[in-house]
């Protein structure tokens, strides 16, 4: 009798869980497991059924110059975009926190790039970076600055991508910081002001530490974004020139759909999953403890 009752209660529980579970299994767990499985197989358009090769795919990738370059590129991209966009977002939020008419307009315009699809953003910046008649070239001509072959040079293509990404993301992160600032009671600032604390001191000792939870949250989003957004590469460079703007996700895409190498794409995916998992573990177990909520 009792058992039957428990079973019935549990049944309800699982039924409520079912819709979410179906989609999670279909689009997350199953592909993850399939990728792990495929990473042990030599599997491409010629061998769609696959041949077991053990760790060969991993060995190959670790020795592959392009994969190494892509990892390196991704690191540079993350280092270039994450801290700068966070600092910029925090700066904008602190400056625009006071509600005035001008600030509302400024906030809107800073947030605006967020609502434009990344593909459209890429097209806008394609026009800016265009050699000879692009917006930057004209700007540079006017001020007598040197022309820069943004997308044509291995040296400049990554900075070009980084600038575009910061432009696109800083306004989005600003919203989180504005929300974070709303949570800091004004009396704290009044009290500090009566104690004679300067603006810089107040920012360092009060605002910045009290924004830490927001900063961590934004940091994780920015970091994962730096790995998972590659739309602009399709539009602007296709990873070139000479893989100088290639990122890991685009590399996976290339291997799977351009070269048809399912095994290698799956292996790179598994490596990516492990890296992302490591990042979130660091987040929850190390950084979380050092932050006051």
């Amino acid at each position: 009798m009792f058992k039957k009752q428990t079973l019935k209660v549990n049944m309800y529980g699982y039924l409520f869980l079912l819709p979410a579970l179906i989609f999670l299994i279909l689009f997350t767990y199953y592909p993850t497991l399939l990728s792990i499985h495929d990473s042990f197989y030599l599997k491409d358009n010629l061998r769609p059924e696959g041949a077991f090769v053990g760790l060969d795919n991993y060995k190959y990738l670790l020795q592959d110059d392009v994969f190494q370059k892509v990892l390196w590129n991704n690191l540079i991209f993350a280092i270039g975009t994450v801290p700068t966009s966070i600092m910029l977002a925090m700066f904008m939020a602190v400056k625009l926190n006071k509600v005035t008419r001008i600030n509302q307009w400024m906030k809107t315009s800073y947030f605006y790039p967020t609502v434009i699809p990344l593909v459209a953003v890429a097209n806008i910046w394609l026009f800016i970076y265009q050699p000879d008649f692009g917006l930057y070239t004209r700007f540079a001509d006017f001020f007598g600055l040197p022309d820069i072959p943004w997308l044509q040079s291995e040296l400049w293509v990554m900075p070009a991508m980084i600038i575009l990404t910061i432009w696109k993301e800083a306004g989005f992160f600003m919203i989180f910081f504005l929300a974070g600032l709303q949570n800091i009671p004004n009396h704290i600032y009044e009290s500090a002001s009566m104690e004679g604390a300067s603006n810089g001191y107040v920012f360092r000792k009060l605002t910045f530490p009290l924004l830490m939870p927001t900063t961590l949250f934004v940091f994780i989003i920015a970091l994962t974004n730096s790995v998972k957004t590659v739309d602009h590469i399709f539009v602007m460079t296709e990873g070139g020139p000479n893989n100088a703007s290639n990122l890991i996700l685009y590399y996976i895409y290339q291997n799977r759909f351009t070269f048809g190498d399912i095994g290698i794409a799956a292996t790179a995916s598994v490596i990516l999953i492990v890296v992302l998992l490591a990042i979130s573990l660091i987040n929850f177990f190390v950084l979380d403890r050092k932050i006051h909520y």
Partner: protein
Amino acid sequence: MGQLQLNKLTKQFTDHLAVDQIDLQVNDGEFVVLVGPSGCGKSTTLRMIAGLESISSGDLILNGTRLNDTHSSNRNMAMVFQSYALYPHMSVFENIAFGMKVRKVNKNIIKQEVEKAAKILQLENLLNRKPGELSGGQKQRVAIGRALVREPEVFLMDEPLSNLDAKLRTKMRSEIKELQQKLKATMIYVTHDQVEAMTMGDKIVVMKDGQVQQIGAPVDVYNKPINRFVGGFIGSPPMNFTQGVLSNEGGKLQLMTEQHSIILSHDENIALQEYVGKKLLIGVRPEEITLGNEGDEYSYSFTVTNTEVLGKESLIFYTFDEHNMWNAKLFDQYTYQTGDTISLQLKPEVMHVFDADTEERLADHYQLSAN
């Protein structure tokens, strides 16, 4: 310690006048309480003194120096906020030390000062805790500690007890008062709670709509409220009021109200007889109404609407007339039911007489208690 003077201090916000020409003298070592309903301008006044709000006009003078344009950090005042305004990510020690660190005080001295304040406020064991781990009363003490180490000329307190529960409030009330006397500190304290004002202040300032209504010692304000508002605001439960026309009935001065003829005097030669034929407002404190006997000269009958027994005292709510609900605080336990008839005594000497139109208290020689 400091002597503070407010000369016609005014705060004009874009859409309304928050504080209207306040004059106030705060003496060295005095505990002054600004009291009034919300929106009366008491907090704005305090914030102008603190320098958190600019002064629209008038002068703020501390020990002879005009402070209007001095930055709040240079006014030598310390404020305790209603929300405590503790820095949530810092320990109690760091919270108290914050101001000294800003002023780059020597580390050893900081430690010494914080420990001294902690000892006074019994915070010694809590110095390493974060505000989130403290009770409301402890947070309050930390906020006071932060003000203490400043060694200010004037302590400013903005409703510091309103976030505490009733029991703790009573305790902190006497603690703050005790501390103020021990330090001989000049203190300006804002509250909407007339009990706090009565019990803590050397001097209370009753405010309404940005204007000072009355300044004086708590007992004086209680005994001689300057107008209807002060009478109703100071004292709990509030003063009862009724209006009527004064008439002379065969040598007896009576106030003719809607339903009752209230006898004010048997002596038609008193000063009040000037008002015969005119409207008057009288106020009677609930605690000065006593149980009467039917047929007694000063006894009147009323219908009870509710009774609250508060222990050894009872609050009787009753209908004075159609427009006025009165209450009486009787010493003892009574169990009147709704609809019961009660006979209560209203002696002339407990009545406060006000002008019916201006609602201002009549001069002392018109008051019945003077006879």
